[in-house]
């Protein structure tokens, strides 16, 4: 094939002060191709996308579009050149309604509507203010807005990370078709399933350098991981947990007992227990009430009914401090919700120590240092840019949100999608950490949007659908197809076609069904 590349960037470099985000990145995309951009957290993927689309200026590098050198200085210029990004963070103007957002970017409304429907959102009101729209839908709207102007090159930065499986699937379908129609897509994701289902080639970045371009063929994952991580990690797949790890002695009374919990209209009648030394998984499609469940347990919102018992005592949380006093800590999925971005890693980790009024006095700096360093080492946080958390990469930021509660020695941790947008190496570390916590007698409630994680980490899995608890699986039976079915509200054992993600290997569907 001798087609000339649609987009060809080479020698791209970018420094943020002393931090080199990109050293020597190159990327070449052919027409009709879905091209994966891969790399560990902090490798520079987002930075490259921002440079290509004029959102940040590069320090060095050459960008050719259809063979012509172009100097793209602003997102508007990128649009004119046919490059349209969907960034890692939503870019609709929060206080404008969707329609105004479209007018602002001169996006034609009808194609947009069509794409929105295509992407699986049927009840969108264009007069809704962006601020009131849930994150996952916003991401889809961002995509639809980009698609509506028919870009030559579409750049999707972790488009699917915050999406529930049903929406993610639609996105993948649409993206695949973009490629088929002769346009190009640059696709960033940490999920191999998606890469292998979708992409033609992958460019791998490591520490700001392009270290390889590979064709996506079965079994290439190993190679990519090797490129991505260099010498950092050799082991890529965690085998199912060993029997020894699983051995969590059944305690007499549960750490947390939830009875008939109801929150507004989103969550109705959920009951389950969480034991010490256990990691309980929560699986649900987007917006089935899991956010409310976690928020209620964390003391962020008040339940409208039902009871929560901690160590056998009924509790009523009015503020997160109450939950924290009961030893329950919450790690939100959105890092920007959990971190003071301009403050140091140390201050962020030590934040809970000063929260209560009686701890407002002088800080014992020696003790704090020791505690914080302990937590940093435990999570292997890259502290080169520790002066301000905002300068850490996404994955390292995520680790800081967890490190805080390790330092504070919380007995129960509620982790809401902690591996969202995190590279495989870091994911492994987090899985290991959660198991270790359970091994030390702590308890963890773990919501994840990636079903394959469940069997690696959890002891039991709670599935929620439509605000109701539909099933509790023992880990052995919680394979992806089974979970997927349950997540769609189908009874155990039923068979239905629920899309490519449920069974990425195509033959898995005739695996023996787990029966209660």
């Amino acid at each position, binding site marked *: 094939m001798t087609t000339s590349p649609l987009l060809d960037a080479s020698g791209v470099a970018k420094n943020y002060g002393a931090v080199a985000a990109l050293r020597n990145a190159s990327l070449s995309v052919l027409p009709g191709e879905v091209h994966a951009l891969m790399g560990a957290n902090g490798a520079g993927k987002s930075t490259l996308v921002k440079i290509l689309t004029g959102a940040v200026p590069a320090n060095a590098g050459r960008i050719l579009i259809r063979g012509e050198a172009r100097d793209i200085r602003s997102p508007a210029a990128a649009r004119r050149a046919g490059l349209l990004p969907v960034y890692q963070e939503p870019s609709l103007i929060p206080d404008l309604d969707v329609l105004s957002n479209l007018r602002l970017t001169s996006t034609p409304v009808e194609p947009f509507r069509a794409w929105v429907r295509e992407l699986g959102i049927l009840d969108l009101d264009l007069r809704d203010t962006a601020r009131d729209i849930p994150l996952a839908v916003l991401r889809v709207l961002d995509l639809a807005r980009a698609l509506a102007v028919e870009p030559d090159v579409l750049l999707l930065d972790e488009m699917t990370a915050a999406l529930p499986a049903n929406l993610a699937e639609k996105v993948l379908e649409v993206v695949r078709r973009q490629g088929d129609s002769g346009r190009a897509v640059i696709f960033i994701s940490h999920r191999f399933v998606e890469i292998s289902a979708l992409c033609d080639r992958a460019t791998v970045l490591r520490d700001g350098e392009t270290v390889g371009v590979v064709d996506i063929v079965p079994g290439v994952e190993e190679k990519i991981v090797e490129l991505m991580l260099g010498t950092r990690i050799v082991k890529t797949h965690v085998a199912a947990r060993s029997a020894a790890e699983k051995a969590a002695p059944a305690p007499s009374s549960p750490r947390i007992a939830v009875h008939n919990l109801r929150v507004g209209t989103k969550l109705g009648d959920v009951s389950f227990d969480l034991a010490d030394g256990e990691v309980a998984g929560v699986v649900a499609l987007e917006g089935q009430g899991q956010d409310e469940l976690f928020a209620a347990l964390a003391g962020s919102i008040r339940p409208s009914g039902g009871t929560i018992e901690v160590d056998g005592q009924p509790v009523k949380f009015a503020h997160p401090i109450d939950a*924290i006093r009961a030893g329950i800590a919450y790690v939100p999925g959105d890092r920007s919700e959990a971190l*003071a971005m301009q403050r140091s890693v140390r201050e962020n980790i030590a*934040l809970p120590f000063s929260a209560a009024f009686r701890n407002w006095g002088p800080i014992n700096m020696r003790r704090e240092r020791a505690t914080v360093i302990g937590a940093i080492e435990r999570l292997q946080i890259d502290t080169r840019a520790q002066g301000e958390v905002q300068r850490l990469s996404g994955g390292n930021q995520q680790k800081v949100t967890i490190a805080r509660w390790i330092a504070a020695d919380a007995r129960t941790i509620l982790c809401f999608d902690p591996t969202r947008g995190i590279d495989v190496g870091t994911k492994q570390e987090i899985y290991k950490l959660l198991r270790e916590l359970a091994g030390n007698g702590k308890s963890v409630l773990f919501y994840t949007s990636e079903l394959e994680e469940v069997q690696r980490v959890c002891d039991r899995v709670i599935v929620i659908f439509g605000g109701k608890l539909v099933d509790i699986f023992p880990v052995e039976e919680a394979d992806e197809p089974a979970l997927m079915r349950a997540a769609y509200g189908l009874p155990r054992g039923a068979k239905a076609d629920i899309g490519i993600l449920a069974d990425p290997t195509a033959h898995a569907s005739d695996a023996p069904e787990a029966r209660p």
Partner: protein
Amino acid sequence: MSTSAISPQSVPFGRRLKRLMADRPLIPLVILLVILVVILQILRPGIVNERWIANTIKFAIPLAILAGCQTMTMLTGGIDLSVGTVATISAFIMATQIVNQDPAVAFLLAMMPAVLIGLVNGIGVGVFRVHPLIMTLGTSLIGTGCLQVYQRTVIASGAKIPDFLAWLGTGVTWGFPNALLLFVPLAALIVFTLARTGFGRLLYAVGDNERATRLSGVQYWQVITALYITSSVLAGITGLLYIGLIKAPSLSLAEPLVLPSVAAAVIGGTSIFGGRGGYTGTIIGALILTVLTTLLTILQMPEGARRILFGLIVLFVTAAYLRIVEER
């Protein structure tokens, strides 16, 4: 391929100097201050003497304390426009109550409105989430009204400046203004609080990301209420010091200090959007403003030109400072 990384040896001197200034933002501020003093000395040879320095410090101190109120509130993304009114009320009550009351009682009476206004500000901002600009503006209007009403009840009794306050405000011992006896510990306390106490940490964190602090168990309203009360109490103390310095109670005594106090905090490198800044910079900012005022006073030019120059210099200083500090 990694040879493209910047090696520290090859950094030219100019860049290194800039980096040094960026890491230690106090250095450029002090340099700016020195430049202003040198200009002053050139314009009026001999002016920079012991007496002038003492005077400058005397007037910079009340401004610096009020700017401390702004610094702390600005760290949380707020602002306290009621400090001028609070300082005035405390000063006025002190000067009028001392006539018939025991000094301790007069002091308590003088600080009471300060605590009250701080509490109301704190509740408004922390519980009802009213924008601090509006909240403190409103309480300062109310405070001024109350002061006017109060004033009428004490016209007959006259006013007196307690000797101790006059000594503190205007006295000089061995060339050092006595006000330093109050200010040095106070400033040390503020600096320590911001850097080394839980409360200080929370101010920065709340200003940076309030939701994150909530999830960490911080109760916003507690922090904010405590903050605005602290700010008001500091303003009240400033009022007492200021009345000792000016020795004439008036109903608008400290009002002219409000805008400069905001400017001093900003010049000193505190971000009005919260989460960033410190008190040492603010102190130098207050000194810069005080010297600048003197500088402009002695220049022979029409008042209009003087104000234009003042505005331009404040803008220039802040811009230059930001340039230097942002170079990272």
